[in-house]
């Protein structure tokens, strides 16, 4: 009887520990998987002639790693309140599309034998962390930091910092400047036009 009780205790302990570790997954570990899969897709010769397919495949990965709503709110900061709920939704959608286009163009266009080194993670608080990586290209090393927060039990990126330049802060400055002179509607219109031009450009190429 005593033996059974001990076994139960041990079992309980282990499942408990397993549950805790699932909830407290490490931010760096959580980023590593998708990024490495992304690199594998970029290097996969199968996609050499079908860049649109490669694009969508990588996008599937990125979508699960980035928290685009958080990126949008942070980029607008206090201006977020100037937007109506509908405008916020459209803005988030269009801004996400812009980031998607820039990011994918960049990595699809330039990825040649680069290597991503995961250096370390720093916990900023219980639910915020920085994951430091380095991209090594020929003899140039570029430090890239991902700011992540815990959302619905998963670590997701809300800002990217390349050589000390925060993406969110850079857009915040631009949006401030634009919204000082224009209405939110016009800002959204600008985003839409930029995305449309990009889609047309891609169609021409593809």
């Amino acid at each position, binding site marked *: 009887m005593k033996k059974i009780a001990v076994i139960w205790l041990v079992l309980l302990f282990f499942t408990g520990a397993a549950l805790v570790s699932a909830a407290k997954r490490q931010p760096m570990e959580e980023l590593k998987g998708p990024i490495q899969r992304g690199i594998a897709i970029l290097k996969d010769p199968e996609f050499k002639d079908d860049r649109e397919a490669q694009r969508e495949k990588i996008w599937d990965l990125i979508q699960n790693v980035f928290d685009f*709503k*958080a990126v949008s*709110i*942070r980029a607008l*900061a*206090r*201006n*977020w*309140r*100037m*937007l*109506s*709920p509908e405008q916020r939704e459209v803005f988030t959608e269009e801004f996400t599309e*812009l980031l998607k286009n*820039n990011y994918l*163009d*960049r990595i699809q*266009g*330039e990825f040649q034998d680069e290597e991503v080194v995961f250096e370390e993670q720093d916990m900023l608080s219980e639910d915020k962390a920085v994951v430091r990586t380095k991209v090594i290209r*020929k*003899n*140039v090393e570029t430090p890239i930091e991902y700011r992540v927060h815990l959302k619905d039990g998963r670590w997701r990126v809300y800002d990217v910092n390349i*050589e*000390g*330049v*925060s993406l969110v*802060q*850079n*857009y*915040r*400055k*631009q*949006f*401030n*400047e*634009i*919204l*000082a002179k224009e209405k939110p509607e016009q*800002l959204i219109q*600008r*985003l839409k036009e*930029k995305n449309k031009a990009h889609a047309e450009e891609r169609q021409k190429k593809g």
Partner: protein
Amino acid sequence: MKTFFIYTSMLLALCININGFKPNHARAADPADSGEISIYETDQEYEALMEELAEDEGEAEAVQIADPLYYWNKGVYHFNDRLYFWVMKPVTRGYKAVTPQFLRTGLSNFFNNLGTPVRFVNNLLQGRSEQAGVELGRFMVNTVAGGLGFWDVAKYESPLRNRPNEEDLGQTLGVWGVGNGFYIVWPVLGPSTLRDSVGRVGDSPLYPLFYVDSTGTIIAAEAVDQVNDLSFRLGDYESLKESALDPYTAIRDAYLQSRREQIRK
């Protein structure tokens, strides 16, 4: 180099004068910071974020800058943009196509080695004696054994393996607590601030090319340095510009943010 020196200091003097007038276009004001917000709904995420942003308000301050020369800057920005697309980019592409990789890397090492005195002195001025020592060691090894710096042989010596961070007088002044002043875009040289422009002029006597007597040689050497350097970074400017909704503001902010980071390191 001497003409460059005179030209730069004249323009700088001019800038300081203009700054004295401060047109009503001093654009440090940040609409988002004025606090005028119409409230539509209470968003928990938003509230938490505003708290966080308020906490590092001081940090945000550091990348705020006055832009009293806005019209001049914007004009020069357009000039530089054209210079890039019409001249620099095609020239660099041609150069990259005909120049083998090892030669480009070698030239990059060579010019980097020439920049040692500037970095060495500024490391000392910032009290970074260890970095200064690494600079000195690398300079001696690479100049003597690396063909005047063409080969980075110092990287095989473990204490000298890594290139220390870039340091210049603008950063030194920043470490000493001197603020950016205002933003200024120079023809050809690009984005800068009052502090960094002063730093640049102050650094120039430490650059060996400063003492070459023939202006033609200096211009040629500078051109090779620029083009060679650009050959490693082709596409960066395009994607920065392409990703921006307001490229002028995006570039200004990227410059300020990266300088702040350099001063920190």
